Protein backbone atom coordinates (compact mmCIF):
# COMPACT_ATOMS: atom_id res chain seq x y z
CA UNK A 1 0.00 0.00 0.00
CA UNK A 2 2.80 2.37 1.03
CA UNK A 3 4.75 1.30 -2.06
CA UNK A 4 1.79 2.16 -4.33
CA UNK A 5 1.38 5.61 -2.85
CA UNK A 6 5.12 6.31 -3.13
CA UNK A 7 4.98 5.20 -6.79
CA UNK A 8 2.09 7.58 -7.39
CA UNK A 9 4.07 10.40 -5.76
CA UNK A 10 7.06 9.55 -7.93
CA UNK A 11 4.91 9.52 -11.08
CA UNK A 12 3.34 12.89 -10.12
CA UNK A 13 6.80 14.40 -9.56
CA UNK A 14 8.08 13.01 -12.91
CA UNK A 15 4.99 14.44 -14.60
CA UNK A 16 5.58 17.85 -13.03
CA UNK A 17 9.23 17.81 -14.10
CA UNK A 18 8.39 16.99 -17.78
CA UNK A 19 8.58 20.12 -19.98
CA UNK A 20 5.04 21.24 -20.97
CA UNK A 21 5.74 20.93 -24.73
CA UNK A 22 6.88 17.27 -24.39
CA UNK A 23 4.08 16.48 -21.96
CA UNK A 24 1.47 17.84 -24.38
CA UNK A 25 2.87 15.66 -27.18
CA UNK A 26 3.13 12.46 -25.16
CA UNK A 27 -0.07 12.72 -23.09
CA UNK A 28 -2.38 11.56 -25.87
CA UNK A 29 -0.32 8.51 -26.94
CA UNK A 30 -1.67 5.04 -26.31
CA UNK A 31 0.52 2.21 -24.97
CA UNK A 32 0.71 0.75 -28.47
CA UNK A 33 1.87 4.10 -29.90
CA UNK A 34 4.57 4.41 -27.23
CA UNK A 35 5.70 0.86 -27.99
CA UNK A 36 5.94 1.71 -31.71
CA UNK A 37 7.87 4.87 -30.80
CA UNK A 38 10.49 2.77 -29.02
CA UNK A 39 10.90 0.03 -31.64
CA UNK A 40 10.77 2.26 -34.75
CA UNK A 41 14.49 3.26 -34.70
CA UNK A 42 15.54 -0.40 -34.41
CA UNK A 43 13.16 -1.42 -37.19
CA UNK A 44 14.43 1.35 -39.45
CA UNK A 45 18.03 0.27 -38.79
CA UNK A 46 17.17 -3.37 -39.54
CA UNK A 47 15.40 -2.35 -42.74
CA UNK A 48 18.41 -0.27 -43.81
CA UNK A 49 21.13 -2.83 -43.10
CA UNK A 50 19.32 -6.16 -43.63
CA UNK A 51 16.15 -5.91 -45.68
CA UNK A 52 17.18 -3.23 -48.18
CA UNK A 53 20.46 -5.00 -49.18
CA UNK A 54 18.54 -8.27 -49.53
CA UNK A 55 15.95 -6.72 -51.85
CA UNK A 56 18.74 -4.98 -53.78
CA UNK A 57 20.63 -8.29 -54.15
CA UNK A 58 17.49 -10.02 -55.44
CA UNK A 59 17.05 -7.19 -57.97
CA UNK A 60 20.72 -7.39 -59.07
CA UNK A 61 20.44 -11.17 -59.46
CA UNK A 62 18.19 -10.61 -62.50
CA UNK A 63 20.68 -8.25 -64.19
CA UNK A 64 24.15 -8.37 -65.78
CA UNK A 65 25.47 -5.72 -63.34
CA UNK A 66 29.25 -5.61 -62.74
CA UNK A 67 30.44 -3.59 -59.74
CA UNK A 68 33.74 -2.71 -61.46
CA UNK A 69 31.80 -1.11 -64.35
CA UNK A 70 29.10 0.90 -62.57
CA UNK A 71 28.41 3.12 -65.57
CA UNK A 72 27.89 0.27 -68.06
CA UNK A 73 24.27 -0.10 -69.25
CA UNK A 74 22.28 -2.42 -67.00
CA UNK A 75 20.57 -5.27 -68.87
CA UNK A 76 17.67 -7.31 -67.44
CA UNK A 77 18.61 -10.97 -67.98
CA UNK A 78 15.69 -12.67 -66.22
CA UNK A 79 16.53 -16.11 -64.81
CA UNK A 80 19.73 -16.45 -66.90
CA UNK A 81 22.06 -16.08 -63.87
CA UNK A 82 20.12 -18.72 -61.94
CA UNK A 83 20.07 -21.21 -64.83
CA UNK A 84 23.80 -20.76 -65.50
CA UNK A 85 24.64 -21.33 -61.79
CA UNK A 86 22.39 -24.37 -61.60
CA UNK A 87 23.98 -25.94 -64.68
CA UNK A 88 27.61 -25.00 -63.94
CA UNK A 89 29.74 -28.10 -63.07
CA UNK A 90 32.27 -25.88 -61.21
CA UNK A 91 29.61 -24.52 -58.84
CA UNK A 92 28.26 -28.07 -58.46
CA UNK A 93 31.79 -29.17 -57.49
CA UNK A 94 31.96 -26.34 -54.92
CA UNK A 95 28.66 -27.61 -53.47
CA UNK A 96 30.11 -31.11 -53.19
CA UNK A 97 33.19 -29.73 -51.44
CA UNK A 98 30.84 -27.93 -49.05
CA UNK A 99 28.92 -31.19 -48.51
CA UNK A 100 32.17 -33.07 -47.71
CA UNK A 101 33.12 -30.37 -45.22
CA UNK A 102 29.64 -30.17 -43.62
CA UNK A 103 28.99 -33.92 -43.37
CA UNK A 104 32.37 -34.97 -41.99
CA UNK A 105 32.85 -32.07 -39.59
CA UNK A 106 29.35 -32.55 -38.14
CA UNK A 107 29.75 -36.33 -37.85
CA UNK A 108 33.04 -35.95 -35.99
CA UNK A 109 31.77 -33.09 -33.83
CA UNK A 110 28.66 -35.00 -32.78
CA UNK A 111 30.57 -38.19 -31.95
CA UNK A 112 33.35 -36.42 -30.05
CA UNK A 113 31.07 -33.80 -28.49
CA UNK A 114 28.61 -36.40 -27.20
CA UNK A 115 31.46 -38.57 -25.90
CA UNK A 116 33.05 -35.62 -24.09
CA UNK A 117 29.67 -34.60 -22.64
CA UNK A 118 29.18 -38.13 -21.24
CA UNK A 119 32.63 -37.94 -19.63
CA UNK A 120 32.24 -34.39 -18.29
CA UNK A 121 28.76 -35.23 -16.92
CA UNK A 122 30.40 -37.52 -14.32
CA UNK A 123 31.61 -35.93 -11.08
CA UNK A 124 35.40 -36.13 -10.69
CA UNK A 125 38.26 -34.06 -9.29
CA UNK A 126 39.19 -31.12 -11.57
CA UNK A 127 35.84 -31.34 -13.37
CA UNK A 128 35.50 -27.52 -13.68
CA UNK A 129 39.07 -27.05 -14.88
CA UNK A 130 38.70 -29.69 -17.62
CA UNK A 131 35.42 -28.18 -18.77
CA UNK A 132 37.10 -24.78 -19.15
CA UNK A 133 40.10 -26.28 -20.98
CA UNK A 134 37.81 -28.12 -23.42
CA UNK A 135 35.78 -24.97 -24.08
CA UNK A 136 38.85 -22.81 -24.91
CA UNK A 137 38.98 -23.42 -28.72
CA UNK A 138 35.37 -22.31 -29.11
CA UNK A 139 36.16 -18.94 -27.58
CA UNK A 140 38.87 -18.08 -30.13
CA UNK A 141 38.26 -16.02 -33.24
CA UNK A 142 38.06 -18.09 -36.48
CA UNK A 143 40.66 -15.73 -37.97
CA UNK A 144 43.10 -16.53 -35.15
CA UNK A 145 42.37 -20.26 -35.44
CA UNK A 146 42.92 -20.19 -39.22
CA UNK A 147 46.24 -18.39 -38.83
CA UNK A 148 47.74 -20.51 -36.09
CA UNK A 149 46.66 -23.81 -37.66
CA UNK A 150 48.44 -22.63 -40.84
CA UNK A 151 51.61 -22.50 -38.73
CA UNK A 152 50.86 -25.84 -37.08
CA UNK A 153 50.45 -27.45 -40.53
CA UNK A 154 53.82 -26.19 -41.86
CA UNK A 155 55.70 -29.25 -43.22
CA UNK A 156 59.16 -28.23 -41.91
CA UNK A 157 58.37 -26.52 -38.61
CA UNK A 158 54.71 -27.28 -37.85
CA UNK A 159 53.91 -28.98 -34.56
CA UNK A 160 51.11 -31.06 -36.13
CA UNK A 161 53.47 -32.62 -38.69
CA UNK A 162 56.01 -33.41 -35.96
CA UNK A 163 53.38 -35.05 -33.73
CA UNK A 164 52.13 -37.18 -36.66
CA UNK A 165 55.75 -38.02 -37.51
CA UNK A 166 56.40 -39.05 -33.88
CA UNK A 167 53.34 -41.32 -33.84
CA UNK A 168 53.63 -42.81 -37.35
CA UNK A 169 57.41 -42.81 -37.80
CA UNK A 170 57.15 -40.85 -41.08
CA UNK A 171 59.32 -37.89 -42.01
CA UNK A 172 57.50 -34.67 -40.93
CA UNK A 173 58.23 -32.95 -44.25
CA UNK A 174 56.94 -35.91 -46.27
CA UNK A 175 53.34 -34.65 -46.23
CA UNK A 176 51.61 -31.28 -46.46
CA UNK A 177 48.21 -30.98 -44.83
CA UNK A 178 47.16 -27.79 -46.64
CA UNK A 179 49.20 -28.22 -49.81
CA UNK A 180 48.11 -31.73 -50.71
CA UNK A 181 45.02 -32.34 -52.88
CA UNK A 182 43.96 -35.37 -50.79
CA UNK A 183 44.75 -34.01 -47.34
CA UNK A 184 43.60 -30.37 -47.66
CA UNK A 185 39.81 -31.16 -47.47
CA UNK A 186 40.53 -33.15 -44.30
CA UNK A 187 42.65 -30.33 -42.86
CA UNK A 188 39.67 -27.94 -42.83
CA UNK A 189 37.46 -30.69 -41.35
CA UNK A 190 40.07 -31.28 -38.63
CA UNK A 191 40.37 -27.60 -37.69
CA UNK A 192 36.60 -27.03 -37.64
CA UNK A 193 36.15 -30.16 -35.51
CA UNK A 194 38.85 -28.98 -33.10
CA UNK A 195 37.18 -25.59 -32.79
CA UNK A 196 33.49 -26.52 -32.58
CA UNK A 197 33.39 -29.89 -30.78
CA UNK A 198 33.18 -28.01 -27.42
CA UNK A 199 30.02 -26.27 -28.62
CA UNK A 200 28.32 -29.58 -29.43
CA UNK A 201 29.58 -30.90 -26.09
CA UNK A 202 27.91 -27.97 -24.27
CA UNK A 203 24.56 -28.61 -25.96
CA UNK A 204 24.76 -32.36 -25.23
CA UNK A 205 25.71 -31.58 -21.62
CA UNK A 206 22.57 -29.42 -21.31
CA UNK A 207 20.56 -32.39 -22.64
CA UNK A 208 22.20 -34.84 -20.23
CA UNK A 209 21.61 -32.52 -17.25
CA UNK A 210 17.91 -32.26 -18.17
CA UNK A 211 17.33 -36.03 -17.73
CA UNK A 212 15.59 -36.68 -14.37
CA UNK A 213 17.48 -39.07 -12.05
CA UNK A 214 14.21 -40.95 -11.38
CA UNK A 215 14.41 -42.55 -14.80
CA UNK A 216 17.84 -44.06 -14.10
CA UNK A 217 16.71 -45.17 -10.63
CA UNK A 218 13.64 -46.89 -12.13
CA UNK A 219 15.89 -48.53 -14.76
CA UNK A 220 18.21 -49.80 -12.03
CA UNK A 221 15.22 -51.26 -10.16
CA UNK A 222 14.29 -53.04 -13.40
CA UNK A 223 17.89 -54.34 -13.60
CA UNK A 224 18.66 -52.53 -16.85
CA UNK A 225 22.35 -52.71 -17.77
CA UNK A 226 24.52 -49.68 -18.69
CA UNK A 227 24.01 -50.21 -22.44
CA UNK A 228 20.24 -50.59 -22.05
CA UNK A 229 20.08 -47.39 -19.92
CA UNK A 230 22.10 -45.52 -22.56
CA UNK A 231 19.99 -46.83 -25.45
CA UNK A 232 16.56 -46.45 -23.83
CA UNK A 233 16.99 -43.34 -21.65
CA UNK A 234 20.10 -41.25 -22.42
CA UNK A 235 20.02 -41.33 -26.22
CA UNK A 236 16.27 -40.60 -26.73
CA UNK A 237 16.36 -37.80 -24.15
CA UNK A 238 19.45 -36.15 -25.67
CA UNK A 239 18.36 -36.66 -29.30
CA UNK A 240 16.42 -33.34 -29.67
CA UNK A 241 19.46 -31.49 -28.33
CA UNK A 242 21.70 -33.38 -30.76
CA UNK A 243 19.36 -32.43 -33.62
CA UNK A 244 19.66 -28.82 -32.54
CA UNK A 245 23.46 -29.01 -32.54
CA UNK A 246 23.51 -30.75 -35.95
CA UNK A 247 21.24 -28.14 -37.53
CA UNK A 248 23.07 -25.18 -36.02
CA UNK A 249 26.50 -26.48 -37.02
CA UNK A 250 25.10 -27.50 -40.42
CA UNK A 251 23.89 -23.98 -41.15
CA UNK A 252 27.12 -22.42 -39.84
CA UNK A 253 29.36 -24.77 -41.85
CA UNK A 254 27.26 -24.39 -44.98
CA UNK A 255 28.16 -20.69 -45.03
CA UNK A 256 31.67 -21.09 -43.57
CA UNK A 257 34.12 -18.60 -45.09
CA UNK A 258 36.66 -17.02 -42.74
CA UNK A 259 38.45 -20.08 -41.41
CA UNK A 260 38.66 -21.87 -44.78
CA UNK A 261 39.79 -18.68 -46.53
CA UNK A 262 42.61 -18.18 -44.00
CA UNK A 263 43.67 -21.83 -43.99
CA UNK A 264 43.66 -22.76 -47.68
CA UNK A 265 41.93 -19.94 -49.65
CA UNK A 266 40.12 -22.71 -51.48
CA UNK A 267 43.33 -24.39 -52.66
CA UNK A 268 45.27 -26.36 -53.73
CA UNK A 269 43.51 -25.79 -57.05
CA UNK A 270 39.86 -25.78 -56.05
CA UNK A 271 39.87 -28.81 -53.75
CA UNK A 272 38.73 -26.84 -50.69
CA UNK A 273 36.73 -24.21 -52.56
CA UNK A 274 33.50 -24.24 -50.55
CA UNK A 275 30.42 -22.37 -51.80
CA UNK A 276 31.18 -19.12 -49.95
CA UNK A 277 34.70 -18.94 -51.44
CA UNK A 278 33.30 -19.51 -54.96
CA UNK A 279 30.85 -16.70 -54.24
CA UNK A 280 33.64 -14.36 -53.10
CA UNK A 281 35.69 -15.17 -56.24
CA UNK A 282 32.75 -14.53 -58.56
CA UNK A 283 31.84 -11.29 -56.79
CA UNK A 284 35.23 -9.69 -56.05
CA UNK A 285 37.76 -11.34 -58.39
CA UNK A 286 35.70 -11.86 -61.56
CA UNK A 287 33.38 -8.93 -60.72
CA UNK A 288 30.26 -10.79 -61.96
CA UNK A 289 28.01 -9.00 -59.47
CA UNK A 290 24.66 -10.04 -61.00
CA UNK A 291 25.76 -13.69 -61.23
CA UNK A 292 27.15 -13.69 -57.68
CA UNK A 293 23.96 -12.01 -56.41
CA UNK A 294 21.95 -14.91 -57.85
CA UNK A 295 24.35 -17.34 -56.17
CA UNK A 296 23.97 -15.44 -52.87
CA UNK A 297 20.17 -15.67 -53.20
CA UNK A 298 20.41 -19.46 -53.74
CA UNK A 299 22.60 -19.83 -50.64
CA UNK A 300 20.32 -17.50 -48.66
CA UNK A 301 17.15 -19.44 -49.53
CA UNK A 302 18.89 -22.72 -48.58
CA UNK A 303 20.06 -21.34 -45.22
CA UNK A 304 16.62 -19.78 -44.63
CA UNK A 305 14.92 -23.12 -45.31
CA UNK A 306 17.30 -24.95 -42.96
CA UNK A 307 16.80 -22.23 -40.33
CA UNK A 308 13.05 -22.89 -40.46
CA UNK A 309 13.71 -26.54 -39.62
CA UNK A 310 16.08 -25.39 -36.86
CA UNK A 311 13.37 -23.19 -35.29
CA UNK A 312 10.89 -26.07 -35.53
CA UNK A 313 13.27 -28.42 -33.67
CA UNK A 314 14.07 -25.67 -31.15
CA UNK A 315 10.36 -25.26 -30.39
CA UNK A 316 10.12 -29.03 -29.90
CA UNK A 317 12.98 -28.90 -27.37
CA UNK A 318 11.37 -25.93 -25.57
CA UNK A 319 8.06 -27.81 -25.22
CA UNK A 320 9.77 -30.73 -23.43
Amino acid at each position, binding site marked *: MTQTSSLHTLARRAGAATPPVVAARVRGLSDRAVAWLFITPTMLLLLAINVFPLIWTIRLSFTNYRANRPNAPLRWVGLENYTSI*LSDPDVWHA*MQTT*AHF*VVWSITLQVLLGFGLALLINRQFRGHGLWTTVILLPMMLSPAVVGNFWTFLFQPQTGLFNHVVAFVSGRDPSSFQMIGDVTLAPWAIVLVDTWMWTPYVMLICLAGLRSIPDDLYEAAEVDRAGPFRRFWSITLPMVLPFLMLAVLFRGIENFKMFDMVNLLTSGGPGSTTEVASITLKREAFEKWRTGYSSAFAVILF*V*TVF*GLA*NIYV*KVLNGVKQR
Partner: protein
Amino acid sequence: MSARSGRSRRWPRVLRRRPWENAATATIGAGAAMLMQPFSLDLYGWSFAVILAGTAAFLVVSHFPE
Protein backbone atom coordinates in the same frame (compact mmCIF):
# COMPACT_ATOMS: atom_id res chain seq x y z
CA MET B 1 -11.90 -18.58 -27.04
CA SER B 2 -15.17 -19.31 -28.80
CA ALA B 3 -14.07 -17.38 -31.90
CA ARG B 4 -10.85 -19.36 -31.99
CA SER B 5 -12.56 -22.72 -31.62
CA GLY B 6 -15.11 -21.61 -34.22
CA ARG B 7 -12.26 -20.83 -36.61
CA SER B 8 -10.73 -24.27 -35.94
CA ARG B 9 -14.13 -25.88 -36.61
CA ARG B 10 -14.42 -24.10 -39.95
CA TRP B 11 -10.85 -25.03 -40.93
CA PRO B 12 -10.72 -28.24 -43.05
CA ARG B 13 -9.47 -31.20 -41.06
CA VAL B 14 -6.96 -32.14 -43.80
CA LEU B 15 -5.14 -28.83 -43.37
CA ARG B 16 -3.71 -29.43 -39.91
CA ARG B 17 -0.32 -27.87 -39.26
CA ARG B 18 1.78 -30.84 -38.11
CA PRO B 19 1.68 -33.15 -41.19
CA TRP B 20 2.01 -30.28 -43.65
CA GLU B 21 4.91 -28.79 -41.71
CA ASN B 22 6.60 -32.19 -41.74
CA ALA B 23 6.06 -32.45 -45.51
CA ALA B 24 7.53 -28.96 -46.06
CA THR B 25 10.51 -29.84 -43.83
CA ALA B 26 11.10 -33.02 -45.82
CA THR B 27 10.95 -31.02 -49.08
CA ILE B 28 13.57 -28.54 -47.79
CA GLY B 29 15.78 -31.42 -46.63
CA ALA B 30 15.42 -33.18 -50.00
CA GLY B 31 16.29 -29.93 -51.80
CA ALA B 32 19.40 -29.42 -49.66
CA ALA B 33 20.45 -33.02 -50.37
CA MET B 34 19.87 -32.49 -54.12
CA LEU B 35 21.99 -29.31 -54.00
CA MET B 36 25.02 -31.09 -52.53
CA GLN B 37 24.80 -34.64 -53.94
CA PRO B 38 27.61 -35.80 -56.26
CA PHE B 39 25.54 -38.09 -58.54
CA SER B 40 23.42 -36.09 -60.99
CA LEU B 41 23.76 -32.61 -62.48
CA ASP B 42 20.02 -32.67 -63.30
CA LEU B 43 19.12 -33.19 -59.64
CA TYR B 44 21.47 -30.32 -58.76
CA GLY B 45 19.73 -28.17 -61.37
CA TRP B 46 16.31 -28.71 -59.78
CA SER B 47 17.52 -28.36 -56.19
CA PHE B 48 16.92 -24.63 -55.83
CA ALA B 49 13.35 -24.92 -57.10
CA VAL B 50 12.67 -27.70 -54.56
CA ILE B 51 14.21 -25.73 -51.67
CA LEU B 52 12.29 -22.59 -52.67
CA ALA B 53 9.01 -24.54 -52.90
CA GLY B 54 9.67 -26.20 -49.51
CA THR B 55 10.53 -22.91 -47.82
CA ALA B 56 7.50 -21.11 -49.27
CA ALA B 57 5.28 -24.03 -48.27
CA PHE B 58 6.74 -24.00 -44.75
CA LEU B 59 5.98 -20.28 -44.39
CA VAL B 60 2.37 -20.88 -45.46
CA VAL B 61 1.62 -24.06 -43.49
CA SER B 62 3.20 -22.77 -40.27
CA HIS B 63 0.17 -20.47 -40.08
CA PHE B 64 -2.28 -23.38 -40.15
CA PRO B 65 -3.99 -24.20 -36.81
CA GLU B 66 -2.71 -27.18 -34.78
